[in-house]
Protein backbone atom coordinates (compact mmCIF):
# COMPACT_ATOMS: atom_id res chain seq x y z
CA UNK A 1 0.00 0.00 0.00
CA UNK A 2 1.30 3.44 -0.85
CA UNK A 3 1.21 6.21 1.77
CA UNK A 4 -1.28 8.23 -0.33
CA UNK A 5 -3.66 5.28 -0.49
CA UNK A 6 -3.31 4.82 3.24
CA UNK A 7 -4.06 8.49 3.91
CA UNK A 8 -7.28 8.14 1.95
CA UNK A 9 -8.11 4.95 3.81
CA UNK A 10 -7.64 6.76 7.11
CA UNK A 11 -10.04 9.48 6.00
CA UNK A 12 -12.62 6.84 5.11
CA UNK A 13 -12.21 5.04 8.42
CA UNK A 14 -12.25 7.92 10.88
CA UNK A 15 -14.87 7.52 13.58
CA UNK A 16 -17.93 9.55 12.53
CA UNK A 17 -18.25 12.95 14.19
CA UNK A 18 -21.67 13.28 15.81
CA UNK A 19 -22.20 16.58 13.99
CA UNK A 20 -25.90 16.94 14.73
CA UNK A 21 -25.53 16.05 18.39
CA UNK A 22 -22.50 18.34 18.82
CA UNK A 23 -24.25 21.23 17.10
CA UNK A 24 -27.34 20.78 19.21
CA UNK A 25 -25.35 20.67 22.44
CA UNK A 26 -23.33 23.72 21.36
CA UNK A 27 -26.64 25.51 20.76
CA UNK A 28 -28.02 24.55 24.16
CA UNK A 29 -24.88 25.24 26.20
CA UNK A 30 -24.05 28.48 24.36
CA UNK A 31 -27.69 29.57 24.54
CA UNK A 32 -27.90 28.91 28.27
CA UNK A 33 -24.69 30.84 28.96
CA UNK A 34 -26.11 33.80 27.01
CA UNK A 35 -29.38 33.48 28.93
CA UNK A 36 -27.48 33.73 32.21
CA UNK A 37 -25.85 36.84 30.75
CA UNK A 38 -29.28 38.20 29.87
CA UNK A 39 -30.53 37.64 33.41
CA UNK A 40 -27.60 39.64 34.76
CA UNK A 41 -28.03 42.29 32.06
CA UNK A 42 -31.68 42.69 33.04
CA UNK A 43 -30.95 42.94 36.77
CA UNK A 44 -27.94 45.28 36.65
CA UNK A 45 -29.85 48.47 35.66
CA UNK A 46 -31.45 48.53 39.13
CA UNK A 47 -28.19 49.89 40.52
CA UNK A 48 -26.29 50.92 37.37
CA UNK A 49 -28.65 52.64 34.97
CA UNK A 50 -26.19 53.60 32.21
CA UNK A 51 -26.16 51.30 29.21
CA UNK A 52 -22.39 51.00 28.89
CA UNK A 53 -22.15 50.48 32.62
CA UNK A 54 -24.61 47.61 32.75
CA UNK A 55 -23.02 45.90 29.76
CA UNK A 56 -19.63 46.22 31.46
CA UNK A 57 -20.88 44.82 34.74
CA UNK A 58 -22.57 41.94 32.93
CA UNK A 59 -19.36 41.02 31.13
CA UNK A 60 -17.35 41.24 34.36
CA UNK A 61 -19.87 38.97 36.06
CA UNK A 62 -19.72 36.45 33.20
CA UNK A 63 -15.93 36.47 33.36
CA UNK A 64 -16.09 35.84 37.10
CA UNK A 65 -18.46 32.92 36.52
CA UNK A 66 -16.20 31.47 33.81
CA UNK A 67 -13.12 31.80 36.01
CA UNK A 68 -14.82 30.27 39.02
CA UNK A 69 -16.16 27.30 37.07
CA UNK A 70 -12.63 26.79 35.72
CA UNK A 71 -11.15 26.95 39.19
CA UNK A 72 -13.53 24.29 40.39
CA UNK A 73 -12.80 22.04 37.44
CA UNK A 74 -16.27 22.30 35.93
CA UNK A 75 -15.66 24.30 32.77
CA UNK A 76 -13.58 21.68 30.94
CA UNK A 77 -16.33 19.14 31.60
CA UNK A 78 -18.90 21.61 30.26
CA UNK A 79 -16.78 22.03 27.12
CA UNK A 80 -16.58 18.26 26.53
CA UNK A 81 -20.34 18.39 26.06
CA UNK A 82 -20.86 21.90 24.74
CA UNK A 83 -17.85 22.32 22.43
CA UNK A 84 -18.07 25.72 20.77
CA UNK A 85 -21.03 26.47 23.06
CA UNK A 86 -18.51 26.73 25.90
CA UNK A 87 -15.66 28.24 23.84
CA UNK A 88 -17.40 31.12 22.04
CA UNK A 89 -18.99 32.99 25.01
CA UNK A 90 -16.78 35.35 27.02
CA UNK A 91 -16.83 32.74 29.82
CA UNK A 92 -14.72 30.59 27.50
CA UNK A 93 -12.25 33.43 27.11
CA UNK A 94 -12.05 33.71 30.90
CA UNK A 95 -11.62 29.95 31.07
CA UNK A 96 -8.55 30.00 28.84
CA UNK A 97 -6.97 32.72 30.98
CA UNK A 98 -7.70 31.01 34.30
CA UNK A 99 -6.72 27.57 32.99
CA UNK A 100 -3.38 28.87 31.74
CA UNK A 101 -2.82 30.86 34.95
CA UNK A 102 -3.39 27.79 37.12
CA UNK A 103 -1.36 25.57 34.83
CA UNK A 104 1.76 27.70 34.58
CA UNK A 105 1.69 28.97 38.15
CA UNK A 106 3.90 25.94 38.87
CA UNK A 107 6.75 27.66 37.08
CA UNK A 108 6.40 30.63 39.41
CA UNK A 109 4.17 33.70 39.62
CA UNK A 110 6.43 35.81 37.44
CA UNK A 111 7.87 33.65 34.67
CA UNK A 112 5.12 31.07 34.84
CA UNK A 113 1.72 32.58 35.55
CA UNK A 114 2.72 36.13 34.63
CA UNK A 115 4.32 35.21 31.34
CA UNK A 116 1.88 32.57 30.17
CA UNK A 117 -1.52 33.55 31.55
CA UNK A 118 -2.67 34.90 28.17
CA UNK A 119 -0.94 32.25 26.07
CA UNK A 120 -4.22 30.75 24.84
CA UNK A 121 -6.25 33.97 24.84
CA UNK A 122 -3.56 35.82 22.93
CA UNK A 123 -4.69 35.02 19.36
CA UNK A 124 -8.14 36.42 20.15
CA UNK A 125 -6.70 39.62 21.60
CA UNK A 126 -4.08 40.02 18.87
CA UNK A 127 -6.38 39.48 15.91
CA UNK A 128 -9.22 41.31 17.62
CA UNK A 129 -6.99 44.38 17.79
CA UNK A 130 -5.48 43.99 14.31
CA UNK A 131 -8.81 43.50 12.54
CA UNK A 132 -10.46 46.24 14.59
CA UNK A 133 -7.62 48.61 13.81
CA UNK A 134 -7.98 48.08 10.08
CA UNK A 135 -11.77 48.39 10.27
CA UNK A 136 -11.62 51.51 12.43
CA UNK A 137 -8.93 53.08 10.23
CA UNK A 138 -10.93 52.54 7.04
CA UNK A 139 -14.13 53.80 8.61
CA UNK A 140 -12.42 56.87 10.10
CA UNK A 141 -10.92 57.69 6.71
CA UNK A 142 -14.27 57.28 4.96
CA UNK A 143 -16.06 59.41 7.54
CA UNK A 144 -13.28 61.98 7.28
CA UNK A 145 -12.65 61.88 11.03
CA UNK A 146 -8.90 61.75 10.61
Amino acid at each position, binding site marked *: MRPQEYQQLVQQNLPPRPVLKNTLW*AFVVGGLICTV*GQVILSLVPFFEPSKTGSAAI*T*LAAMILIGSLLTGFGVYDELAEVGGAGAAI*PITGFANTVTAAA*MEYRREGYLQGMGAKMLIIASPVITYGILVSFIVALIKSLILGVL
Partner: protein
Amino acid sequence: MQYLIAFLVGGAICALAQLILDTTKYTPTHVLVATVSLGAVLQGLGLYEPFQEFAGAGALVPVSGFGSSITKGMLAEAKSFGWYGLFTGTFEITGLGLAASIVFSTAITLFRKPQR
Protein backbone atom coordinates in the same frame (compact mmCIF):
# COMPACT_ATOMS: atom_id res chain seq x y z
CA MET B 1 -39.10 37.30 25.73
CA GLN B 2 -35.67 38.95 25.84
CA TYR B 3 -34.36 35.81 27.56
CA LEU B 4 -35.61 33.63 24.74
CA ILE B 5 -34.02 35.87 22.10
CA ALA B 6 -30.72 35.85 24.00
CA PHE B 7 -30.88 32.07 24.21
CA LEU B 8 -31.70 31.59 20.54
CA VAL B 9 -29.22 34.13 19.14
CA GLY B 10 -26.36 33.16 21.45
CA GLY B 11 -27.09 29.48 20.86
CA ALA B 12 -27.20 29.98 17.10
CA ILE B 13 -23.77 31.68 17.02
CA CYS B 14 -22.28 28.80 19.02
CA ALA B 15 -24.05 26.15 16.94
CA LEU B 16 -22.72 27.70 13.74
CA ALA B 17 -19.19 27.73 15.17
CA GLN B 18 -19.54 24.08 16.19
CA LEU B 19 -20.79 23.17 12.73
CA ILE B 20 -17.71 24.75 11.16
CA LEU B 21 -15.45 22.93 13.64
CA ASP B 22 -17.03 19.56 12.95
CA THR B 23 -17.23 19.77 9.18
CA THR B 24 -13.93 21.51 8.31
CA LYS B 25 -10.28 21.13 9.30
CA TYR B 26 -10.26 24.44 11.19
CA THR B 27 -9.18 24.42 14.83
CA PRO B 28 -11.05 26.06 17.73
CA THR B 29 -8.48 28.89 17.64
CA HIS B 30 -9.32 29.60 13.99
CA VAL B 31 -13.02 29.75 14.78
CA LEU B 32 -12.54 31.98 17.82
CA VAL B 33 -10.39 34.42 15.88
CA ALA B 34 -12.92 34.41 13.04
CA THR B 35 -15.76 35.16 15.46
CA VAL B 36 -13.88 38.07 17.02
CA SER B 37 -12.96 39.45 13.59
CA LEU B 38 -16.54 39.13 12.42
CA GLY B 39 -17.71 41.17 15.39
CA ALA B 40 -15.14 43.85 14.56
CA VAL B 41 -16.19 44.04 10.92
CA LEU B 42 -19.90 44.15 11.74
CA GLN B 43 -19.23 46.98 14.18
CA GLY B 44 -17.37 48.83 11.45
CA LEU B 45 -20.37 48.42 9.16
CA GLY B 46 -22.58 49.79 11.92
CA LEU B 47 -24.50 46.54 12.21
CA TYR B 48 -23.39 45.17 15.55
CA GLU B 49 -25.10 47.78 17.70
CA PRO B 50 -28.58 47.29 16.24
CA PHE B 51 -27.93 43.55 16.51
CA GLN B 52 -27.03 43.89 20.19
CA GLU B 53 -30.07 46.12 20.72
CA PHE B 54 -32.17 43.23 19.46
CA ALA B 55 -30.37 40.23 20.94
CA GLY B 56 -29.12 41.67 24.23
CA ALA B 57 -26.76 39.25 25.96
CA GLY B 58 -27.05 36.95 22.93
CA ALA B 59 -24.77 39.42 21.12
CA LEU B 60 -22.89 40.77 24.13
CA VAL B 61 -21.66 37.50 25.64
CA PRO B 62 -20.17 35.71 22.57
CA VAL B 63 -16.58 36.82 21.80
CA SER B 64 -17.84 38.61 18.69
CA GLY B 65 -18.89 41.23 21.23
CA PHE B 66 -15.22 41.52 22.21
CA GLY B 67 -14.23 42.36 18.63
CA SER B 68 -17.03 44.83 18.19
CA SER B 69 -16.10 46.58 21.44
CA ILE B 70 -12.50 47.10 20.33
CA THR B 71 -13.65 48.70 17.06
CA LYS B 72 -16.22 50.78 18.89
CA GLY B 73 -13.61 52.09 21.33
CA MET B 74 -11.17 52.91 18.52
CA LEU B 75 -13.79 54.75 16.48
CA ALA B 76 -15.03 56.74 19.46
CA GLU B 77 -11.56 57.88 20.49
CA ALA B 78 -10.52 58.59 16.92
CA LYS B 79 -13.48 60.91 16.73
CA SER B 80 -12.49 62.69 19.94
CA PHE B 81 -8.70 62.81 19.62
CA GLY B 82 -7.81 62.13 15.99
CA TRP B 83 -5.44 59.49 14.70
CA TYR B 84 -3.90 58.43 17.99
CA GLY B 85 -7.37 57.61 19.26
CA LEU B 86 -7.18 54.53 17.04
CA PHE B 87 -4.51 53.28 19.45
CA THR B 88 -5.75 54.62 22.76
CA GLY B 89 -9.26 53.40 22.05
CA THR B 90 -8.18 49.76 21.87
CA PHE B 91 -8.96 48.93 25.46
CA GLU B 92 -11.50 51.65 26.18
CA ILE B 93 -14.31 49.12 26.52
CA THR B 94 -12.51 45.78 26.30
CA GLY B 95 -9.96 46.75 28.94
CA LEU B 96 -12.61 45.63 31.38
CA GLY B 97 -12.75 42.11 29.97
CA LEU B 98 -9.00 41.79 29.94
CA ALA B 99 -8.48 43.25 33.41
CA ALA B 100 -11.33 41.22 34.89
CA SER B 101 -9.92 38.02 33.38
CA ILE B 102 -6.44 38.71 34.73
CA VAL B 103 -7.58 39.77 38.21
CA PHE B 104 -10.09 36.96 38.73
CA SER B 105 -7.75 34.36 37.26
CA THR B 106 -4.92 35.41 39.54
CA ALA B 107 -7.22 35.30 42.55
CA ILE B 108 -8.40 31.80 41.67
CA THR B 109 -4.87 30.61 40.97
CA LEU B 110 -3.99 31.46 44.58
CA PHE B 111 -6.48 28.88 45.80
CA ARG B 112 -7.02 26.26 43.12
CA LYS B 113 -4.94 23.79 41.14
CA PRO B 114 -5.67 21.98 37.88
CA GLN B 115 -7.32 18.64 38.51
CA ARG B 116 -7.28 15.13 37.02
